[in-house]
């Protein structure tokens, strides 16, 4: 019952799950960028599995998802490149790289006095 498409689908689900987990819990931006790539690859693998399943016409595979997939890869690559560029610039400016929220705001200046 486990044909190739199902296997690829399950792999895709695992990749997306792992990537989203890392994207949320990992504080370092570089790891977040890598995690985004893991999620993206999971989606692309799923697209490949979909292409295989959609090949009902006797072709080796549905060509439309493959064309879209290549476009998707280009978009994901540009996204990573842009993120890395911003990250490097941030590292140059500050010597550290974090996307943690801004330092805790000062307590309200007029809290408690009317």
């Amino acid at each position, binding site marked *: 019952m486990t044909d190739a498409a199902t296997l690829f689908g399950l792999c895709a689900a695992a990749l997306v799950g792992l990537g989203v987990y890392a*994207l*949320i819990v990992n504080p370092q931006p570089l790891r977040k960028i890598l995690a*985004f790539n893991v999620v993206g690859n999971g*989606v692309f693998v799923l*697209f490949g599995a979909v292409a295989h399943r959609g090949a009902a016409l006797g072709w080796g595979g549905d060509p439309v998802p493959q064309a879209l997939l290549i476009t998707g890869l280009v978009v994901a690559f540009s*996204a990573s490149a842009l993120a890395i560029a*911003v990250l490097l610039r941030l590292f140059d400016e500050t010597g550290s790289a974090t996307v943690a929220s801004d330092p805790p705001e000062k307590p309200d200046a007029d809290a408690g006095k009317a």
Partner: protein
Amino acid sequence: MTTTPGGLLLVAAVLVPFVGVLAGFALGGRNAQRAATLTILAGVGIAIAIVAAMARSDDDLVYLLGGWAPPLGIALRADGLALVMIPAIAVVILGIGVYARADFATPPGVREARAPLVFWTLLLAIWGSLNLVFVSGDLFTLYVALELLTFAAVPLVSLDGKAETLRAALRYLLYALLGSVFYLLGAVLLYGAYGTLDIRLLAEQVRPEPAALAAAALMTVGLLAKTALFPLHLWLPPAHAGAPPAASAVLSGLVIKGSWFLVVRIWFDVFPGLVTAPSAQLLAAFGAAAILVGNVVALRQERLKLLVAYSTVAQIGYLFLMFPLAFDAGTATLERGGALAGGMLQAISHATAKAAMFMAAGLVYRALGHDRIAGFAGIGRALPVSVLTFALAGLALMGLPPSGAFAAKKLLLDAAGASGQWWWEVVLDVGGLLTASYVVLVLAHALSPAAEPVKPRAPVSRLAEMAALALAICSLALGLAALGPAPLDALPNPLDPKEFGSALAVLAGGAVLALALGLRLPPLPAGDAAVAGVRRATVAIGAAFVRADGVLRQWPVAGLALMAAAIAFGAALLARA
């Protein structure tokens, strides 16, 4: 389906800005601004031509790329929704283009400066991507358009290259990528289930089955993350407040409308049959939370630009109130009626008013060298046009007649009344009061007399002031379209004398809220103990909102909120009668 006469205009609307981008980079230096000026003029002409062509043919404009019809090919299609957005965006771009001439001119003696080159090229890139979002008829093309929009918007955040803005830009980019990967996952699931991504063909085929429901939930939540709907707004305040004013106007007025428009597109055009009453209510509930938290936190800000950024968080909430009001319980679908018209009107009204507000804030910052609201005394006399712009844009945001937001609010109130959803009427009215409160607070500071006259530290460009004022007036006069020909005369008449009283009531209510919750008030006469006690209590409430907002803007919390929202939408979509 065939290409209609005038279909080529849609190609031009997308392509011309990108030709401008390439020309800007290729020619470099000062020529980037010249290329942008020419492109903006051409683009405004194209927007006018599209409106004229649609008025002539009274039907959608369609262009089939390469002559291939969907599902094999890709169609560009301009329908009523695109017809609203394309000219509105063109007007705002024109206003920002005029305003930015002072801030982003290449200095004399310099061959090429980084910030002007980047600003002018990316402004055009954002315009082209937005037009592509409006006219795409295909979910994958929309994905590419959305990514282009984000990639063009992120560098605008960190134009000044300071560490804090770089951090804001990185957070924006990473969260937006998380959102877009959710959207892409949904699109893949739809292709797997139905073998097409064309919006029209999908709308005929989608059934409430697991793949389609999962896709709807994932795509919606992904787009909400990109729109920064509360509680997925962690990136918006620092990004919009840190950018230079012209860039903030682009980001707040235009960029978020791209992903918002896509939510409208998929809910009304792809999944109208999948939407359930709970899912529509959930979407608007996020909107209501955004209005409440965004407005109260805006009232507690020390700096004007952060106040305006939080005002955007709140106004995004408004844009999502139309969904349950457009839901027809009888047929269990979303209807294109008054509620949708109200929502679209709200969007273009916000685009113009918010751009004007950020521009006015930028002018004040330039003149004073700071934007601390408590230090605004006397600027009403020193910078009358900027303060007037802020006031007019504020009136437009509150929804006072004759603004476009007024007509939008009336349409939404009518839809709420007709479907018996009184709770959304309450949200709409309370939102107006809260908006009024921070506008009143800022104006109270700006108009209070200073001990000695304020001398602007830097000259303010007259042209920039006029551009901001013109956009504010555009927003305020949008409601006057009701006096025009059919079908615009279906809008409520803003000159009804009855409206005057309710407008005054909104302002008075806003003033009371500002007194109760405002951060730093102008000196008040010493009140009695009871008043002081009430103020202490309300201030504690306001501080609690600020703390809650701070927690929600932590990265792990926002990530979990995204997952929780996806699950909640999935469950709400499953709950069908």
